C-alpha cells in the first residue's frame, strides 16, 4: 500500500508539473528553442569547417552533448527554483512526502530531456552531416543518458533552490558533477556513430547505467534531507 500510494502521489506531482508548465506554455518549449538557436549558432560558425575525418566522430558527438547539456540546464533548474520563488515550496513541503516530490519532478525533467533530444539530435545530424551507423545503439545511449542526467540535475536543482535562491548556482554545481557523465555519453555516442553493431555501445552503456544507478540511489537517500533541510 505504501508503494502504490507513493506511485500515485508521484504521478500527482508529475501531473501538476505538466499542467502548470503547459499552461504557462513558454517554459516547456523554451528549452527546445534555446537548444535550437544554439544549434544554429554552432552549425553556422563551426559547421562549414572541414574537420579531419578521423576526428569527426568524437568532435561531433562532443559538440552535440555540449549543446544538449546547456539546453537542458537552462530549463531543468526551474523545477524547484520556481516553487521557492512563487513561495509554494513550503506548501508542497508540508503536504507531500519527499520521495513523491522527487519522483514527480524527476519524471518531468526526464520528459523534458527526452523531448529535447528527439528535437535536437535529428536536426544536428542533418545540419552537421553527422552520419550515425548504429541508430539503435544511439537511441539506447540517449535514453539512458537522459535518465542519468535527469537524476543528477533534479537532485542539484533541489539543493540550489534552498540555497538563497540563485538559478546560476545550479550551473556551478551540476557542470562538474555532469562532466564524467558527459565523457561516457560522448564515448557512447561516438561508438554508436562509428559502428552498426549494438555490441559497440555496451561498454559505454554499462558506465552510463551504473552512473545513473549510483546517482539515483544517492538521490533517494539524500533528497529527503535536502527537501526537509
Amino acid at each position, binding site marked *: 500500500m505504501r508503494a502504490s500510494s507513493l506511485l500515485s502521489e508521484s504521478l500527482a506531482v508529475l501531473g501538476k508539473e505538466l499542467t502548470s508548465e503547459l499552461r504557462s506554455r513558454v517554459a516547456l518549449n523554451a528549452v527546445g528553442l534555446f537548444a535550437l538557436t544554439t544549434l544554429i549558432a554552432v552549425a553556422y560558425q563551426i559547421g562549414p569547417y572541414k574537420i579531419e575525418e578521423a576526428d569527426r566522430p568524437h568532435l561531433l558527438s562532443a559538440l552535440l552533448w555540449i549543446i544538449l547539456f546547456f539546453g537542458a540546464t537552462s530549463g531543468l533548474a526551474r523545477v524547484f527554483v520556481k516553487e521557492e520563488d512563487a513561495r509554494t515550496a513550503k506548501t508542497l513541503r508540508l503536504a507531500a512526502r519527499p520521495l513523491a516530490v522527487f519522483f514527480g519532478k524527476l519524471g518531468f525533467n526526464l520528459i523534458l530531456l527526452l523531448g529535447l533530444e528527439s528535437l535536437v539530435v535529428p536536426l544536428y545530424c542533418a545540419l552537421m552531416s553527422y552520419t550515425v551507423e548504429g541508430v539503435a545503439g544511439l537511441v539506447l545511449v540517449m535514453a539512458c543518458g537522459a535518465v542519468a542526467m535527469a537524476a543528477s540535475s533534479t537532485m*542539484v536543482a533541489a539543493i540550489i533552490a534552498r*540555497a*538563497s535562491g540563485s538559478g546560476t548556482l545550479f550551473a*556551478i*554545481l551540476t557542470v562538474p558533477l555532469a562532466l564524467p557523465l558527459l565523457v561516457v555519453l560522448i564515448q557512447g555516442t561516438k561508438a554508436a556513430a562509428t559502428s552498426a553493431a549494438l555490441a559497440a555501445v555496451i561498454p559505454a552503456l554499462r558506465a552510463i547505467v551504473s552512473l545513473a544507478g549510483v*546517482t539515483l540511489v*544517492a538521490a533517494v537517500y*539524500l533528497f529527503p534531507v535536502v527537501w526537509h*533541510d
Partner: protein
Amino acid sequence: MTERKRFPWWPWALFAWMAVVIWAAFFYAPAAKGFKGESARIVFFHVPQAWVAVLAFCVNLVASLRYLRRRDLVDDARAAAAARLGLVFSILATVTGSLFAKVMWGSFWNWDPREVSIAILLLVYAAYFALREAIPDDERRASLSSSYAVLAFVTMPFLVFVVPRIYWSLHPDTLINSRGSIDMESRMFQVLMGALAGFTGLFFWLYTLDVRLAKVGLRRRQREES
C-alpha cells in the same frame, strides 16, 4: 580535552620528519632512470600531495555522512576542514604535476585525462564552497553541503578511475601496476613512503588545528546563547 596541552610534541616530530624527507628527496634518493635529469625528485612531493587530496575527500565524505546521521555541527566543521585541505593539496598536486609535465611532456598543460580529472575535482570542491557561501543558516548549510559532498563523492570514482582509463593517457600508471608488483628502486621507494607518511601527518595536523578552531567558534556561540 587536548586543548589544555599548549605544546603537543608531535607537530615538532612532524617538522623534523618532513625536514629529513626533504633532505632525503634531494640527497639520498638516486636520480630515476627514464626521467629527464633530476626531474623525478618532484615525485616525492607530487605523489604524496595527490594521495593526501584523495584522503582528504574521503575524510570529507565520512564527516558528511556522520553529520547527516547525528546532526552535530562539529561534523560539519570537520567536513569543511577536510574539503578545504583537499582543495589546497589538489592545487599543490596540480602545480607540481604541471611543473613535472613541463619537463617531461614539454608543456604545462596537455589535456591529459589525469589533468582533466583533477581540474574537475577542483571545480567540484570549489562548487562545494560556493554552495556553503550561499547559505546563511548554519543547520541548513550543513545539511545541504553534506548532501552535495555525498553526491560529489559518488562521481569521484568515475573521475579518478574510469575517465583516465577510457582515454589514452601520458600519465604513469598507478604505483602498484597490473602485475601486482612494485617497480621502483628501493631507496626511492623508501623516500616515497617516508614522504607519504610525512604528508599524511601534515594533513592530520592541519586538519585537527582547523577543527579545533571551528569548535572554539561553536562553543563561543553556545556560551553567548546561554
